[in-house]
C-alpha cells in the first residue's frame, strides 16, 4: 500500500484540521506517514492543499499523483484532478460546491448535511470528510474517537461526541460510495510517533535544556516559538517575542551570557537582521543556537514556500572571521538530534551553531518508531558552583591550548565575567596592540577550528557500496534522494551522500566519502535552489566538481518522482 491523500481548498476552510487528523489516525494505526503542506501567504481564500502519504513501508518523500482527493472547493478540482492516479477517488460535497462532477472517481458525499444532521453544526463537515476518506480507504475507524478527542482537546465531551457521530456517518458514506474502489488498506502496525520538523527542533531544544527562546514571528520558523511557548510553563522556559530580530538575537546572547542555554529562530530576512549579532556571539564567544528556516528569496519572496537558497549565506554570514557550525537536517529525526548536538557544540566550543531547515521540512510530518533520547548526551560545559567559587583567579578569555576558555556564570561567585565585542585581552578588556590581536584570532579561529571539524560527522551514505551513480545533497532533499535510491536499486548501481553537518565541512582526510564521488561515473547534486550552492561549497572545500546538478527553484519541494525524472534525463 502506498497512497497519497490530498485535501484542497481555501485558506480557512479547515484543510489543516482534515489533513492533520488523518495523519494522526494513520500514525496511530502504525502506518508510515509523510505529510506536506502547500499554502499561500494569506489567511482566508486562495488555494491551499495538504498531502498525506501513507504506506506500510517507510516513506520519506512526497510522490506525484493523488489517490484520494478531498476537494473543499471547485478550484481544487480544477487544479488537481489532472493529478489523479488510476483508481483514485475524489470526495466532495456537490451541494456545497454547487456543482456535480461526472465520472466514477467522483464521490459526492453530503458532508455538510451529515455535519448538520449528526453534529448540529456545519463546521463539522470537515470531520465528515475525515470519516469519508477513512471509509473510502477501508481503514479501521477504531482510532477515530480517540484522535478526535486529541484534536479537540479541552472542547468538552459533548463536542467530541457530536464529532464522533459525524465522523462515523462520514465513514459509512465513504465506505459505501467507494465500495468498488479497490483500495487495499494494508496491515496496521504499532502506533508510531508523528512529528514535524519545527516540533522536532523544539523537542531537541527541550531535550538540551534550552531555557530561553526569543524570536520575532516569521514563517516558516514560527512553529518553533509556538511549540516552546505552549510548553514554557511546564518545562521552565522563558519565551519572549522580541520587538525585532535584532533584539531577539541580542536577548538570546544576554541570556546565554547569564548562564542559560538559549536559542532563536527565524527565516532568511530575519536571519539577515541577525548577522551582526552572530558576529557578536563569535567575538564574545557566547554560545548560541540559531534556527534558520529557509523560504524562497530574495527579500520577502515566497513567504510560505520552500527553498534551499541560503547555504552560502549562512556559511559566510557576518563581518569578520570566526568559526561556526552549520547543520542542515534532512528529516525531523535529524532535526531533533542535530538540535541537541548544536546545543552541545555551541556551549562546548563557545561558538554559534546554525540549524538550517526550510518550509518543507519545518511543516512536514514524518513517522518514527521512537526517538533515541538516550543517544543524546547532556553535559553542562559551564563553570559554576564550587569549581567556580574556588577558582584561584578567573579570566573570561584565558589562553588555553585548545582555544576554549572557561565559561563562568556571572554573579555565581565573586569572580567577574567580562564579555567584550571589541578586541580584548584575556580579562575581556579593550586592547589596541597587534600581539594580543594575533593571539586572540589564533584562539578564537585557528585553535578552535580543528576541534570543531573533529566533531563533524561524515555524510550519510546510502545505497550501493561501489556506486556508478552518486546523488548528493543536503538538508531537506534527504527523503526524496533516499527514495530515489531505493527505487533505482538494484537495477542502477546508485548511492546517496546526504550532508547534514556542513560547516565545518566533514574531514575528507578522515572519511572516505570523496572516493565515492571520484570513482562514480555520474555524480549529481540535488538542490532546491537555482544556483547550486552546495556544488559551489564542495568546490570551495575540496576542488571537486559534480557532474551535474538537479535543481528546483519554484518554491515547491522535490518529489521522489522529480528526482527520478531528473536522473533519467541526466544519466544516459
Amino acid at each position, binding site marked *: 500500500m502506498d497512497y497519497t491523500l490530498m485535501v484542497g481548498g481555501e485558506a480557512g476552510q479547515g484543510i489543516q484540521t482534515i489533513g492533520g487528523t488523518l495523519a494522526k489516525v494513520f500514525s496511530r494505526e502504525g502506518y508510515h506517514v509523510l505529510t506536506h503542506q502547500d499554502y499561500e501567504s494569506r489567511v482566508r481564500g486562495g488555494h491551499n492543499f495538504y498531502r498525506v502519504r501513507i504506506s506500510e513501508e517507510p516513506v520519506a518523500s512526497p510522490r506525484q499523483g493523488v489517490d484520494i482527493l478531498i476537494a473543499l472547493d471547485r478550484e481544487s478540482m480544477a487544479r488537481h484532478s489532472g493529478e489523479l492516479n488510476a483508481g483514485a477517488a475524489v470526495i466532495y460535497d456537490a451541494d456545497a460546491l454547487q456543482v456535480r462532477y461526472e465520472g466514477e472517481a467522483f464521490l459526492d458525499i453530503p458532508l455538510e448535511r451529515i455535519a448538520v444532521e449528526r453534529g448540529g453544526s456545519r463546521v463539522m463537515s470537515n470531520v465528515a470528510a475525515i470519516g469519508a476518506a477513512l471509509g473510502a480507504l477501508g481503514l479501521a475507524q477504531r482510532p477515530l474517537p480517540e484522535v478526535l478527542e486529541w484534536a479537540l482537546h479541552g472542547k468538552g465531551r459533548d463536542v467530541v461526541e457530536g464529532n464522533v457521530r459525524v465522523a462515523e456517518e462520514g465513514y459509512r458514506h465513504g465506505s459505501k460510495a467507494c465500495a468498488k474502489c479497490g483500495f487495499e488498506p494494508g496491515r496496521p502496525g504499532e502506533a508510531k510517533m508523528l512529528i514535524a520538523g519545527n516540533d522536532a527542533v523544539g523537542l531537541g531544544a527541550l531535550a538540551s535544556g534550552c*531555557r530561553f527562546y526569543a524570536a520575532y514571528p516569521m514563517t516558516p520558523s514560527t512553529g518553533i516559538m509556538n511549540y516552546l511557548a505552549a510548553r514554557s510553563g511546564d518545562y521552565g522556559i522563558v519565551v519572549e517575542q522580541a520587538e525585532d530580530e535584532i*533584539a531577539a538575537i*541580542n536577548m538570546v546572547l544576554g541570556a546565554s551570557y*547569564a548562564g542559560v542555554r538559549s536559542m532563536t529562530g527565524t527565516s532568511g530576512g530575519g536571519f539577515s537582521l541577525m548577522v551582526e549579532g552572530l558576529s557578536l556571539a563569535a567575538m564574545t564567544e557566547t554560545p548560541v543556537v540559531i534556527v534558520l528556516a529557509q523560504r524562497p528569496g530574495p527579500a520577502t519572496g515566497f513567504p510560505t514556500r520552500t527553498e534551499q537558497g541560503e547555504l552560502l549565506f549562512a556559511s559566510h554570514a557576518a563581518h569578520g572571521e570566526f568559526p561556526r557550525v552549520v547543520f542542515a537536517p534532512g528529516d525531523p529525526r535529524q532535526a531533533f538530534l542535530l538540535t541537541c548536538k548544536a546545543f552541545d557544540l555551541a556551549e562546548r566550543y563557545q561558538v554559534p551553531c546554525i540549524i538550517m531547515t526550510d518550509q518543507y521540512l519545518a511543516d512536514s510530518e514524518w513517522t518514527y518508531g521512537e526517538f533515541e533520547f538516550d543517544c543524546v548526551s547532556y553535559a553542562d560545559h559551564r563553570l559554576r558552583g564550587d569549581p567556580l567559587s574556588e577558582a584561584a583567579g578567573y579570566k573570561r578569555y584565558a589562553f588555553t591550548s585548545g582555544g576554549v576558555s572557561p565559561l563562568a556564570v556571572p554573579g555565581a561567585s565573586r569572580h567577574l565575567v567580562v564579555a567584550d565585542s*571589541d578586541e580584548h585581552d584575556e580579562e575581556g578588556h579593550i586592547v589596541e596592540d597587534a600581539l594580543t590581536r594575533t593571539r586572540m584570532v589564533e584562539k578564537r579561529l585557528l585553535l578552535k577550528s580543528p576541534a570543531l571539524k573533529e566533531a563533524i560527522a561524515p555524510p550519510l551514505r546510502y545505497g550501493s557500496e561501489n556506486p556508478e551513480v552518486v546523488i548528493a545533497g543536503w538538508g531537506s532533499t534527504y527523503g526524496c534522494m533516499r527514495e530515489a535510491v531505493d527505487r533505482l536499486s538494484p537495477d542502477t548501481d546508485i548511492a546517496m551522500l546526504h550532508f547534514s553537518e556542513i560547516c565545518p565541512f566533514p574531514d575528507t582526510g578522515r572519511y572516505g566519502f570523496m572516493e565515492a564521488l571520484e570513482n562514480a561515473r555520474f555524480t549529481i547534486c540535488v538542490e532546491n535552489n537555482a544556483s547550486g550552492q552546495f556544488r559551489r561549497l564542495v568546490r570551495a572545500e575540496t576542488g571537486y566538481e559534480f557532474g551535474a546538478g538537479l535543481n528546483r527553484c519554484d518554491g515547491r519541494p522535490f518529489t521522489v518522482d522529480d528526482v527520478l525524472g531528473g536522473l533519467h534525463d541526466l544519466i544516459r
Partner: protein
Amino acid sequence: MISFDDYKDQEPAWCPGCGNFGIRNAFIDAMTGMGMEPHQLVIVSGIGQAAKFPHYVKCNAFNGLHGRALPVATGIRLANHRMHVIVMTGDGDCYGEGGNHFVHAMRRNVNVKLFVHDNQIYGLTKGQASPTSMEGMVTKAQPFGVMSEQFNPLAMAIALDCGFVARGFAGDRAHLAGLFVRAMEHEGFALVDILQPCVTFNKVNTYEWYRERVWKMDGEHDEGDRMEAFKMSLLWGERIPIGVIFRKRRPTYEERNPVISRAPLVEQAFDRSKLAAALAEFY
C-alpha cells in the same frame, strides 16, 4: 566596606575633562554608598565613549554592539533576575541606533537601569549630530546644521509610561549619585538621562551652558502625576530641570512571568525526566 578604589579598573581613555568622568565618580559613589559589590552588578553597554564605561569600573560586563545594549540586558535579567543589571549607553547608542529597543524595553518594564550619557553628539566617531543634538548645530555631516527636531527622551519615556524617568547632570556628582541610588531602588525599568559635556566635539552644550540652565526641580512637582511630569519634560531652554521627573510603580516583567516569578531561570535545575512526557505528545 567596599570603597571607591575597589571599583576602579582600567585607566579611562576619555578626553581630559570629559563629562564621563563625573558620571563614573557619581556611579561609584552610589554603588559604594549602597554597599553594592562589583560581582553583584552586570553592566551592559553598546559602543561609543559612554559605552566604554564597564572597562573603567569593576563589574561583570557585557560590552556588546552599538545600539544593542538593552536587549542584551533584558536577556540577562530574564535569565537571572538576582543580578543588578545596568545599561551604560550614549545618546547615539540608545536613541539612534538603539531607538527601537528603547521603546520596547520601557513597555516590557524589565528591571533594568538605563543610564544614558547624553552629550548631544556622537563622540567616538568624531562629532556627528546625535538625536539629541539641538537644531541648527553644524557638524561635518550636517553642514547646513541639524534639521531634525531634537529628540526628547524624557517626554517619550513618559508617553510610554516608563516607571522612573529622571535627568541628571555630569557636573553635579552628589545630585547624580542620588539619582542613581533612587533609580536602583525603583522596582522596574528606570531611565536616567545624564547631561554630559563632550569637551572635544560639542562646542554648544558646554559645562557652562549646562550650569547656567540646570535647575534642580526636586520637590517642585508631583512625581506621580503624568501630566505634570510631561509638562516638566518639555522644558528645555533657560531652565533645564534635573531630578526625578516621573515615577510610577508598575508590575515588572519578572513579577508577571510565572516561569521566573519564583526563582531565576539560571537557578532552576534542568529536569531531564520530564522529557518522556514531551515525547509522548507525538503519539
